[in-house]
């Protein structure tokens, strides 16, 4: 191409842009918003998974955690090594502290532990006895920085670093503590400081271990460790000796394993919680990306095709005069390529700017900070993809156009389409006219229906997740009517504390299809007077269960289905689901207290009853859970765990906060995208009829009549598409959402509210109104006399 030809091409392209600047700009906006969202979401989700991964790798995350009642002896450690597992001490001690003037509970770890090591965001690990590394969420809560100091067990320590711990199951706070990171602080101290803290708080030391599998399986190690039986006189908890004595007296075999917790890393809710949340946001990202890219590709392809098809006569003329296909292609490519590149680059820039705000998971979970930057590959694909698509569509469509005989190109194409199969002369002319018009423009209508459908899929996705989460949060909040839950290891059966309600909880493991024990489902025996849970009927059979809705969702079970559960002594129990109770907060299998007690280890039952009898009081039936709307004053040695309503809701709330930024972005951008897409598509198909519209006006049709003849059909297309697309999109998206949330421990049902539907319909109509206005304005602005000079 010589300079003159290039100049001409550029001038002609510039005129082309000016003539259709609104549509070209709309394409830029579509690309910018669409790619911005996609690049932002992918960058954020990748960074999140990268952060988790980095934390695990850099910190040499152990394969699992073991906590024992008393420290294991070195003989026991080497015995485990023979089974094929290395067990590394990762002990901790809870001591009082003060951070930025607020009282805290400090859980101190050794800086020299060999597995599940801390990773640093800033500074370094404590190098001497008066330094400390503070966990990042706690540091963030009090705005602590490297160089500040905190008080641990009465002594000020200088913060040498801020970071996170890859395994912080251990962070599960004990009785009366809170998991609020502002008040519960994970810190890492030097070996000598740890020894000093442990020496002054011997009862607060927890014998925790990380294990690394070197040949053994989790099950083999679990079996091996559970055979280490607690010798009563070595147990730190006085009730262990009492219980064993009581059982021996009754002649029932009872042994307490030295191990009080065995937790493979994949079962660790604090790790898997973050991973499942990250995975869910990644899935949201993937679904959004697929939908947005489909839409962008669809609109770009149709827009490119339309331009060439409409210019067929010009192309034919030029080609008849001897212009080469290559030269034609170059001319037709200039404008779309410039516009696409500008849109895509702006999109990448927007995505980069958005990414850090998209609910990066490390703001809520303690994982190492990672740079939130789009990778060079992502940017390259985001820019090159649309550009390549546009080029490809042009080559294909232009080739197809030029392959037709030039003769044919010179005459405008017949706008055919199927004709009406029957005579409709009895109908008013306008009606038949519009019907015929509709049949002839089927292609155009289909184009809009497709575009609108993709938009609605995207919108239904965003709005549906939003509504589902809102509804779930409201339900879960309403379901959790108790404030404190205590699980008791050594219940005092002589009485139930005032204000508390008892229940019998039996953690059992659900057998999967291969008969392998999987996740834990708690069977809960609920007494008739319990106000917090749905009470199963007293006529319930021993092998019947009423599932909570969360459990039904999680295990995809309904009334009549069977479920097999394994108890702690490896016995399998087969249950039939006889009902699903409207309880969404936690996965439970509800039964009567009597049936639940039958599942409890008989030794534990007898020991508990004997111990109360020895105390002299009247013995109540066995229970091991206390629920209350206020904290209870219990003997810490009797309690296994304590959780608060905030903690139980906390996971969901955290998930919601994470997801909500993403969902908000998806919703808003998809609304914008919908308006832009409809604008581009409707304007495009209306523009095909601009000549006819102007002509009818020359013949004496008023704007309103022309509108009715040509434009109002699109209103019905839009209304019809919304009416069909919304239910279809809801059906598709509920399945997608179900697949996306199977790994969540809760049942969140996809929900599209009437308000969402109204919003979508309103948006579609608003876009139509904008187009209608713009179209009638530009048919009005074209002088009729100019149209008359066109030999169409």
């Amino acid at each position: 191409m010589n300079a003159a030809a290039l100049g001409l091409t550029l001038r002609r392209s510039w005129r082309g842009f000016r003539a259709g600047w609104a549509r070209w700009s709309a394409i830029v906006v579509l690309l910018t918003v669409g790619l911005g969202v996609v690049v932002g979401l992918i960058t954020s989700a990748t960074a999140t998974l990268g952060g988790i991964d980095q934390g695990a790798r850099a910190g040499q995350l152990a394969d699992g955690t073991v906590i024992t009642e008393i420290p294991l002896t070195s003989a026991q450690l080497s015995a485990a090594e023979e089974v094929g597992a290395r067990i590394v001490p990762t002990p901790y001690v809870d001591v009082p502290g003060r951070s930025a003037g607020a009282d805290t509970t400090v859980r101190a770890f050794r800086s020299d532990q060999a597995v599940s090591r801390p990773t640093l965001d800033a500074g370094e690990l404590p190098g001497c006895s008066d330094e400390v590394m503070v966990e990042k969420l706690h540091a963030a809560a009090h705005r602590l920085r490297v160089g500040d100091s905190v008080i641990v067990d009465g002594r000020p320590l200088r913060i040498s670093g801020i970071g996170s711990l890859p395994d912080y199951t251990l962070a599960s706070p004990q009785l009366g503590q809170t998991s609020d990171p502002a008040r519960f602080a994970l810190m890492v101290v030097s070996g000598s400081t740890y020894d000093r803290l442990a020496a002054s708080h011997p009862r607060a030391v927890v014998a925790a271990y990380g294990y690394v599998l070197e040949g053994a399986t989790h099950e083999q190690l679990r079996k091996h460790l559970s055979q280490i039986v607690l010798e009563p006189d070595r147990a730190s908890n006085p009730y262990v000796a009492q219980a064993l004595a009581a059982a021996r007296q009754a002649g029932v075999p009872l042994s307490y394993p030295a191990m009080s917790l065995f937790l493979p890393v994949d079962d660790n809710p604090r790790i898997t919680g973050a991973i499942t949340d990250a995975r869910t946001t990644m899935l949201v990202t993937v679904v959004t990306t697929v939908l947005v890219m489909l839409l962008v590709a669809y609109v770009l392809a149709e827009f490119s095709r339309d331009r060439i098809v409409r210019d067929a006569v010009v192309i034919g003329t030029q080609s008849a005069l001897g212009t080469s296909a290559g030269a034609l292609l170059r001319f037709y490519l200039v404008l779309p390529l410039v516009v696409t590149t500008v849109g895509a680059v702006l999109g990448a820039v927007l995505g980069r700017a958005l990414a850090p705000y998209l609910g990066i998971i490390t703001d809520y979970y303690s994982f190492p900070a990672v740079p939130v930057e789009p990778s060079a590959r992502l940017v390259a694909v985001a820019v090159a993809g649309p550009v390549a698509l546009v080029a490809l569509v042009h080559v294909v469509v232009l080739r197809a156009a030029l392959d037709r005989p030039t003769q044919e190109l010179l005459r405008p194409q017949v706008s055919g389409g199927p004709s009406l199969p029957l005579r409709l002369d009895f109908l008013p002319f306008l009606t038949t006219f519009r019907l015929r018009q509709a049949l002839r423009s089927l292609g155009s209508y289909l184009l809009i229906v497709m575009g609108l459908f993709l938009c609605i899929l995207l919108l239904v996705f965003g709005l549906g997740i939003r509504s589902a989460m809102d509804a779930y949060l409201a339900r879960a909040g309403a379901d959790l009517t108790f404030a404190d839950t205590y699980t008791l290891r050594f219940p005092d059966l002589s009485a139930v504390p005032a204000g508390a309600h008892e229940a019998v909880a039996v953690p059992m493991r659900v057998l999967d299809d291969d008969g392998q024990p999987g996740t834990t489902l708690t069977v809960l025996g609920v007494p008739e007077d319990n106000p917090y849970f749905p009470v199963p009927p007293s006529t319930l059979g021993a092998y019947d269960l009423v599932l909570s809705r969360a459990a039904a969702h999680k295990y995809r079970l309904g009334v009549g289905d069977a479920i097999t559960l394994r108890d702690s002594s490896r016995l399998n129990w087969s249950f039939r689901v006889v009902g699903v109770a409207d309880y969404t907060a936690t996965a439970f299998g509800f039964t009567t207290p009597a049936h639940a007690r039958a599942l409890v280890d008989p030794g534990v039952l007898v020991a508990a009853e004997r111990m109360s009898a020895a105390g002299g009081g009247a013995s109540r039936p066995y229970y091991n859970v206390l629920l209350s709307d206020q904290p209870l004053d219990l003997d810490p040695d009797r309690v296994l765990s304590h959780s608060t309503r905030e903690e139980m809701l906390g996971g969901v709330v955290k998930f919601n906060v994470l997801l909500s930024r993403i969902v908000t972005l998806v919703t808003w951008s998809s609304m914008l995208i919908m308006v832009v897409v409809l604008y581009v598509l409707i304007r495009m198909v209306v523009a095909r009829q601009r000549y006819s519209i102007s002509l009818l006006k020359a013949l004496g049709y008023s704007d309103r009549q022309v509108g009715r003849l040509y434009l109002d059909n699109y209103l019905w297309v839009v209304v019809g598409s919304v009416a069909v697309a919304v239910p279809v999109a809801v059906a598709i998206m509920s399945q997608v959402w179900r697949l996306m949330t199977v790994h969540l421990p809760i049942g969140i049902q996809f929900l599209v509210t009437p308000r969402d539907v109204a919003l979508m319909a309103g948006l579609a109509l608003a876009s139509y109104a904008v187009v209608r206005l713009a179209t009638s304005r530009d048919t009005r602005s074209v002088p009729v006399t100019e149209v008359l000079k066109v030999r169409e």
Partner: protein
Amino acid sequence: MTEDVLASAHVRLEGVSRHFGAGESLVEVLHDVSFSVARGARCVIVGASGSGKSTLLNAIGGLDRPDAGRILVDGQDVTAMSPKELTRYRRRHIGFVFQFYNLVPDLTVRENIQVTAHLVRRPLDIDDLLVHLGLYEHRNKFPAQLSGGQQQRCAIARALVKGSDLLLADEPTGALDRHTSQQMLEVLDDVHRIYRATLVMVTHNEAITGLADQVIELRDGRVVRDELNPHPRAARDLDW
């Protein structure tokens, strides 16, 4: 021109001027054009290409607005009408045959006529017109499937179907052979006779002036001839 003709003038132009562009590129297309056409007369406007014929016709038809002067049709000032009034004016009074046919591409022949017929309460019979213009067997074709002459005939049928009292035709025979041109002129003649419509026809073919009651010649946007023809001939008797 007699007082009698002036009194019953159907179309009257008074000092009509039209220019396009501004400054350097300003073109005076019509310059102080004045004439009258009597009701029921056949007026032929001749002139070289670019002399402003189409511009003049468009102005009379209410498609374009002159920069100065008045155009009175039935005593109503077309130049003073609002866009809405212009639409109503075109609908009620004007039958237009455009120079480039300008058929609606996505309508068939019959529909192109129908869509215009629909504008008035009592249109002529469409099928009669189709037969008369030799388009009956082409009635279901789209404009792109017709020859130039067929398209022009369709355009004429479209202009006639409303039975308007003012027919404006811009080179209706421009692209047609002699035989077809003659047929076309006969059709116009018939319509004129039957419906007593006033016909204003633009042409560059001096021969056609033979059938006119009045001949107006434009040169560079000025009227250089405005004469009445006392003995107009029938279309079939024209010499080409």
